[in-house]
């Protein structure tokens, strides 16, 4: 086991003993469940209305009526929930002075950052895996196109990873966990609003550049089933950039 793997294992072990992960996962799953239930009920009433107009031949599209709204609302839940998952990652180490142990061990800061990121990502992956109950159950009663569901999950995965990277950065900046959570929440919301900012500026180079920065447009395309390298590159570069910033912040702590 390399030091980085040891950090992943230790982070997962610590996370499992803390109530935070269970609360976060429970809140996320309950809200995800409720949202998809509402979407299914809405889809049902729409189907009834369609049948009144078109007769029994009417076919409802679960992809449009259930999955898309659920995926969109999930972005909001993740924005609220994931900062709680990442807030302790560095802030707690500094508060409890275990940071000094990490920094005086023969482990590169990039390994520490990577190890911690992988650990929170694995936890997030677990949460997402549990939401698969919804498509699986729906598949038993109705047929739908699986491809956009998969790309939607890919979008959730990438966007969540970006949220986690932003959250880790916020956690590295302060030793107060509440500030870390609030800061990452604020950062994510501002980036989200950049999409709206861009449309205010219209179809100008600046406007396009600003709306490109918002994660929501890229997510939108993935949810609609469009896999574009541009969007994948956006998430990959965003995650790497935030991890790089985290690295710099952790490094700079030594100079204070």
């Amino acid at each position, binding site marked *: *086991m390399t030091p980085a793997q040891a950090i992943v294992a*230790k982070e997962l072990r*610590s996370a499992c003993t803390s109530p935070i992960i269970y609360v976060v996962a429970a809140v996320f799953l309950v809200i995800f469940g409720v949202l998809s239930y509402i979407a299914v009920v809405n889809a049902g009433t729409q189907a009834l209305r369609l049948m009144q107009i078109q007769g029994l031949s009417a076919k409802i599209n679960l992809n449009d009526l259930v999955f898309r709204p659920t995926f969109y609302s999930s972005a909001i839940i993740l924005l609220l929930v994931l900062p709680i998952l990442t807030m302790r990652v560095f802030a707690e180490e500094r508060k*409890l002075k275990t940071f000094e142990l990490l920094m*005086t*061990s023969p482990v590169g800061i990039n390994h520490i950052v990577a190890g911690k990121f992988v650990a929170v990502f694995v936890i997030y992956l677990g949460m997402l895996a549990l939401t698969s109950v919804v498509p699986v159950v729906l598949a038993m009663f109705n047929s739908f196109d699986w491809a956009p569901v998969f790309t939607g999950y890919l979008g959730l995965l990438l966007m969540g990873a970006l949220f986690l990277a932003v959250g880790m950065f916020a956690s590295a900046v302060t030793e107060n966990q509440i500030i870390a959570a609030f800061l990452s929440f604020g950062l994510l919301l501002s980036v989200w609003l950049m999409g709206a900012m861009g449309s205010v500026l219209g179809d100008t180079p600046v406007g396009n550049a600003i709306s490109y920065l918002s994660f929501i447009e890229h997510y939108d395309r993935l949810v609609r089933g469009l896999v574009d390298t541009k969007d994948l590159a956006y998430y990959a570069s965003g995650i790497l950039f935030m991890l790089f910033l985290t690295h710099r912040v952790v490094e700079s702590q030594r*100079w204070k």
Partner: protein
Amino acid sequence: MIDVQNITKRYGDRTAIERVTFSVNKGEVLAFLGPNGAGKTTTMRILTCFMPATEGTATVDGFDCFDHPMEVKRRIGYLPESPPVYQELTVSEYLTFVGRLKGMTGATLRGRLPLVIEQVSLGEVRHRLIANLSRGYRQRVGLAQALIHDPPVLILDEPTVGLDPKQIIEIRELIKSLSGSHTVILSTHILPEATAVCQRVVIINEGRIVAVDAPEHLSARLRRSEKISLTVKTPPPDFADRLRRISGVVSVIDPATGGAFLVECALGRDIRDDLARFVVTNGWGLLELHAIAMTLEDVFLRLTRHEEGLGERSDGEPPPEVRA
């Protein structure tokens, strides 16, 4: 093994340590002595590559702390001021994690873990959560953490804080047993600790080194005269004056209310037998006679209170290192 040259560390415009220079030989135990806020922790943090110095160089085993931090970190076991423990892990889980962090392989770790647990006597709590351990146990877990990869250099920031007297003695014995094979720097503000385990003492005050020497040399060097305490049953009224007339006596402090006379005599002259004979032949009843050794406490207080002392410079120059 450890060589520190003219290290200065500034936090903004506050200078934590200034031009600190000292070296530690292989197998030596060196104590860092100083009041709180003197710069002990700062110096240790620089040596462990936790933070870089503003100026100056520090090398451990020939590797510069700034240029080759990984090589230095591999060679150092460090116990910070507060033990860096994860409360949600058990003692053996925690030590395994630290071992892996230090790059130990599974096999060596399995062999080493029971040894270290034995060394700091953590056997009975090895499967308990650190959160449920007392301060003393946590301190020992911190010490075990520093020892786990069997580093040639140990840097211990106040290793006996929070321990009960029995544990303090155990830890001191442990540190003593490590000397020879390990190079140890420990900081403390408990003076008997320095005398008990260290070959050399660095006294640091307000970020500057005030003295470097063996504990016994320090007190000898500072001593300008020998002091003797003398208790006599029925001293004559002019006893003090009579004492002053004895050759070699520099001064006599009369207790006035009865009790011990404090006789100061010239350095290098032992006049205890003269004094004894003087009292006994006159039949005043000799009750007690003993030389007062200057303790490290006295040395420390004299050095850190800017009284005249060893290596004290008024022109702001750091004192040259005084070798034991």
